[in-house]
């Protein structure tokens, strides 16, 4: 491979703002090396070291104020780590995922759910690894000791989370729960220290993030429809599909009659609980549509709507457990079964909820970077729209 080709390859590893300058400098040095009795190979080695050590936070290279890059990397790294934590915690709480029973739990359905669980677990590990790398880079390039300490603490959180997967010793008994708790504490410390850093630092809102009504309204409506689907499906599952799966061979009327006679179950109470749950989570999504429809809500960008809707979906799925708790216990007492859910939907919804919460965190962390056109001195450019 020619020296020039290597230099070009090395230049590609530099920030775009520095690429042209260093490539020309290295080319000139390589061309003149013999004149000084030096080898071109020395120039290549020097260029390689520069690609590794270059300060990539220089405003001239990034088009952003100094400090923007580590902050953005930290935000994204923490978001990915948090998303991984949510998914792993969800898998832990559901024992690796709910296994459905009853007539709906065909071998194909079980295989599909197993595959989904396999994928979700590996996705969580990948998110943790990428998040850790991003946070590590942010920690090494952070400009204050407190920021570095906060980020290194945050780095430890995914390590504790993946330990149960690394060795049987860490997956026995309460070890996974303890490790998850430690991970959470370390993560919270890192986050708290990080917040202290962010609060004490000059704001970086250099570019207004705004959206037109046409941009935000369809996303808000789509979110409300998704939320409606979640509460309808979740409600039906709690009141209809899951009771049928728990007592195979019986009709719904018979199931409720036996629950009423054997356990004193009152259907009205369960319906009220499910309705309250559905309304509680659906109303915010509808309010979001109203806000998005107002002309002045320019700050409600599609990304922010997605964050809110995904968080609502995750919250609704998680709190469905409480809405269906009394009916689940009554089913267990009446038919002498476990109190856990058994329907296919009950197995699918937790995965949806975990991924929704993880998605909300990732979307929260993926705030768009300041555009290269933005004024690096901190003034806001006029008329710029960003999602």
């Amino acid at each position, binding site marked *: 491979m020619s020296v020039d080709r290597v230099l070009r390859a090395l230049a590609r590893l530099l920030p775009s703002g520095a690429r042209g300058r260093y490539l*020309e400098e290295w080319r*000139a*040095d390589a*061309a003149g*090396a013999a004149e*000084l009795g*030096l080898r071109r190979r020395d120039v290549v080695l020097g260029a*390689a070291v*520069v690609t590794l050590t270059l*300060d990539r936070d220089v405003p001239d290279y990034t088009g952003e104020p100094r400090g923007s890059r580590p902050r953005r990397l930290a935000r994204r790294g923490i978001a990915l780590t948090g998303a991984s934590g949510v998914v792993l915690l969800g898998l832990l709480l559901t024992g690796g995922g709910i296994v459905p029973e009853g007539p709906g739990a065909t071998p194909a359905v079980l295989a599909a759910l197993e595959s989904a669980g396999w994928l979700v677990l590996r996705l969580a590990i990948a998110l943790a690894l990428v998040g850790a790398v991003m946070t590590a880079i942010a920690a090494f390039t952070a400009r204050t000791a407190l920021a570095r300490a906060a980020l290194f603490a945050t780095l430890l959180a995914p390590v504790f989370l993946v330990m149960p997967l690394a060795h049987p010793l860490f997956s026995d008994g309460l070890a996974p729960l303890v490790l998850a708790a430690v991970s959470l504490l370390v993560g919270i410390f890192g986050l708290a220290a990080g917040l202290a850093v962010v609060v004490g630092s000059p704001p970086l809102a250099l570019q207004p993030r705004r959206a037109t009504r046409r941009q935000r309204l369809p996303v808000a409506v789509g979110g409300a429809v998704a939320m409606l689907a979640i509460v309808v499906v979740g409600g039906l599952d709690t009141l209809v599909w899951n009771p049928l799966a728990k007592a195979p061979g019986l009709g719904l009327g018979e199931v409720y009659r036996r629950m009423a006679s054997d356990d004193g179950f009152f259907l009205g109470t369960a319906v009220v609980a499910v309705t309250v749950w559905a309304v509680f989570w659906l109303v915010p999504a509808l309010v979001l549509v109203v806000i998005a429809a107002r002309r002045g809500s320019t700050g409600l960008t599609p990304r922010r709507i997605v964050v809110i809707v995904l968080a609502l979906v995750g919250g609704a799925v998680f709190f469905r457990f409480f809405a269906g708790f009394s009916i689940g216990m009554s089913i267990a007492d009446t038919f002498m079964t476990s109190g856990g859910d058994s329907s296919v939907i009950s197995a699918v919804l937790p995965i949806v909820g975990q991924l929704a919460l993880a998605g909300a965190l990732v979307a929260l962390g993926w705030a768009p970077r300041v555009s290269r056109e933005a004024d690096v001195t901190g003034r806001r450019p006029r008329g710029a729209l960003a999602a």
Partner: protein
Amino acid sequence: MDPLSRLTPATVDVLRILLEEGGELWGLAVVKRSGRPAGSVYPILERLEGAGWVESAWEADSERNGPRRRLYRFCAEGADAAREAVDRFERVARRERPRSAPRAPLAPAHGGALS
């Protein structure tokens, strides 16, 4: 101008060479004169420039064809800061030498960290 995050013997060598030159000097010439590898000198020049001690510019009106050479020189306050840094480094080195330390430890300058 920012204080340097660390002052190594290689950094002192680069500062000395630029001080001796007094004006613009081709980056690769700094490598040659220092006798240190480009892998050591290039990052030092980049760091000095990033900290605002040194500035660089393309050579002007060259008769050579092809890519332009990058010339380095001190900024307005850079030369004074470099002189002070080199002096301080040498004072510490002289003080430490009898203790058999081959390389002098770093010392602060400008009331803050040179290192």
